[in-house]
């Protein structure tokens, strides 16, 4: 069963990060390498497989904003660090399992998202990501479905457009790949009515310009879920 049907079947109001990325990867959205781990020992083993440094995150159906509860440990360089942080994260209320991820380099963060409006239908958002999303609100929207030209226009409309160009010795963002992500978000929503909103925040721009979604949230509509 795919993660979406599974979550709907259980009456979940959202997909957890791991499930969300599986769905998104199926639509060609680049996501970071990651694995689930039940306990500190398994987390260490997965970290070794992925390669240090890694990121460790608390995961659970009700843990929507992990950072706010201290549920993210960045840049863990050794098995000892992973083990210590794993034990801490597992104590956070709502933490059901651990997520071990490759640590993505690059300090430019974007947000790509989707929301379903009663009148406009699914609408795709693009803008500056990470904490800047809330601070600056530098985001623009398009009504799904999007063309690649629509996506390209969105990139030109944010105030922080310079972020996408060559930046402090780093390569410009891969705009073609970014356009595909934005088009894909619209397509996902048109295909799956149960999806109410999607946040890819952040989508990181690596120093070589390539993009990768390091966090993802898919929230589901309870009414559509109930009908199934």
């Amino acid at each position: 069963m795919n993660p979406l049907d599974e979550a709907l079947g259980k009456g979940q109001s959202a997909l957890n990060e791991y499930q969300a990325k599986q769905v998104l990867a199926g639509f060609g959205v680049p996501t970071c390498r990651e694995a689930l781990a039940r306990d500190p020992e398994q987390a260490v083993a997965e970290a070794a497989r992925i390669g240090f440094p890694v990121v460790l995150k608390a995961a659970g159906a009700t843990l929507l904003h992990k950072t706010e509860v201290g549920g993210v440990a960045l840049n863990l360089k050794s098995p000892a660090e992973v083990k210590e942080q794993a034990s801490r994260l597992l104590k956070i209320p709502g933490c059901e399992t651990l997520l071990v991820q490759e640590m993505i380099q690059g300090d430019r963060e974007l947000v790509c998202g989707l929301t379903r409006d009663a009148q406009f239908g699914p609408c795709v958002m693009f803008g500056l990501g990470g904490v800047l999303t809330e601070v600056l609100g530098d985001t623009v929207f398009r009504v799904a479905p999007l063309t690649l030209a629509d996506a390209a226009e969105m990139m030109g409309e944010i105030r922080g457009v310079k972020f996408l160009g060559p930046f402090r010795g780093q390569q410009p963002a891969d705009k073609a790949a970014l356009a595909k992500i934005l088009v894909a978000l619209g397509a996902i929503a048109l295909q799956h009515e149960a999806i109410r909103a999607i946040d890819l925040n952040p989508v990181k721009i690596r120093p070589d310009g390539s993009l990768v979604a390091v966090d993802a949230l898919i929230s589901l509509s309870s009414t559509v879920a109930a009908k199934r």
Partner: protein
Amino acid sequence: MQHTKQNSLTAFFEPRSVAIIGASATPGKAGYEAIRNVQANGYAGKIYPVNPKGGEILGLPVTSSISALPAGVDLAVIILPAEATPKALRECTARGIRHAALMAGGFAEVDEAGAKLQEELMTVIRETGVRVLGPNISGHTSTPHGYTSAFFPLGKIRRGNVSVIAQTGNFATHTMRSITTGEHFGVCRVIGLGNKVDIDETEALEYLADDPETKAIVIYLESFKRPKRFLEVAREVTRRKPIVMLKSGSTEAGKQAAVAHTAAMASEDRLVDGLLRQAGIVRIWEYSHLVLALKALSMLPLPKGNRVSFLAPSGAMLVTYTDFCARLGLEVPAVGPETVARLQEISPPYIRMRNPVDIWASANVRGVEFAYREGMEAVLKDANIDAVVPVMMLTRQIGQPSFEFILDLAKKYPGKPVLVSFSGDKDCAEECKAYLEPRGVPTFLEIEQAFEALSILVRCRKAMDRPR
């Protein structure tokens, strides 16, 4: 019986006969002024005033009831109170009338009782297939046909090539009056939408898209009835005809709390903004810019790009308006060496000539007409320039130039918009406007407006040429 949409709306704009239900013999009343307006616009079709009192109004025999009308009148204009409107509409359909414009307010926009009346209208529409504009409109206009249903005293409405869709009565009333009295351009079709019980902005747009008389479309909208369909239609139209829109109600008030950041960011206005950009519609934010957009689209070609040259008799203006242009997305580029040489030739050597053009010294030494004529031609000729704004220095003391040279230049360079503004004696500016505008060159009494109008055109051009 189902007409095609196009045919169905055509009767609103090219009616061969019109029944005015609620005609009045009392000057000042809507049912009287509506008839006076039709007559003032030279409508060639038949007019049937309807009023139980009978008699004659403005030389026309009055029919005493709807049922006494000849069969198959093209259009009914119903100017009755809300309570009487649904019944009148049904009676009209019984006489074979397939199109109606409903003027009364007092429907769903007011209270429960009004909402019920609106339901009754919708029942008549559903059962009979009658096509309806309104209710709660102040009229619609079609100058190519010499027709208007407006009940606000308007007089003759000049014919133009830009059409208006308005979810407000203003464009059939006082805004139209400011245009007919203060400006020299005309309009093509004006469509009041009102409560949109039947015809909405999308259908109105579809009609104008195929209307050979309409070159561009200006829209005032408060709400979308079918936003997704509107987007589908508009994004194709804007590749052929510019659309400019003022969408009101753009505040963050509609923002709702939500789990996902994307949903929290998605205030209605941000979605509207996205939709309009996606559709290639040029969004404006000021009410007065509706008239500015109409004027610019009516009187000027779309420029090829955003590169403007302006001539002004003041260093302060050169600096200030260069900044203003930057804010509006207009470029004030350097002009070619030949242009610079020509500009220097017409000026005393103590002024360094370039773009923007400091025309003060030249105007003082060589005369206003010579300076502006030669300066404008130099920049109009330049391949780096898409549009020209002369800020004319006009006062009685230094002498009024003949304004003919501006017409000649506009004609000689038809692809490049020329937008004239002024500094100096107000009455000289008014005189210049009165001379130039009826001859097709727009003027702007406030200098900023010339640049704002140009920026609207530049945005229209960009939208039209946008990649697919």
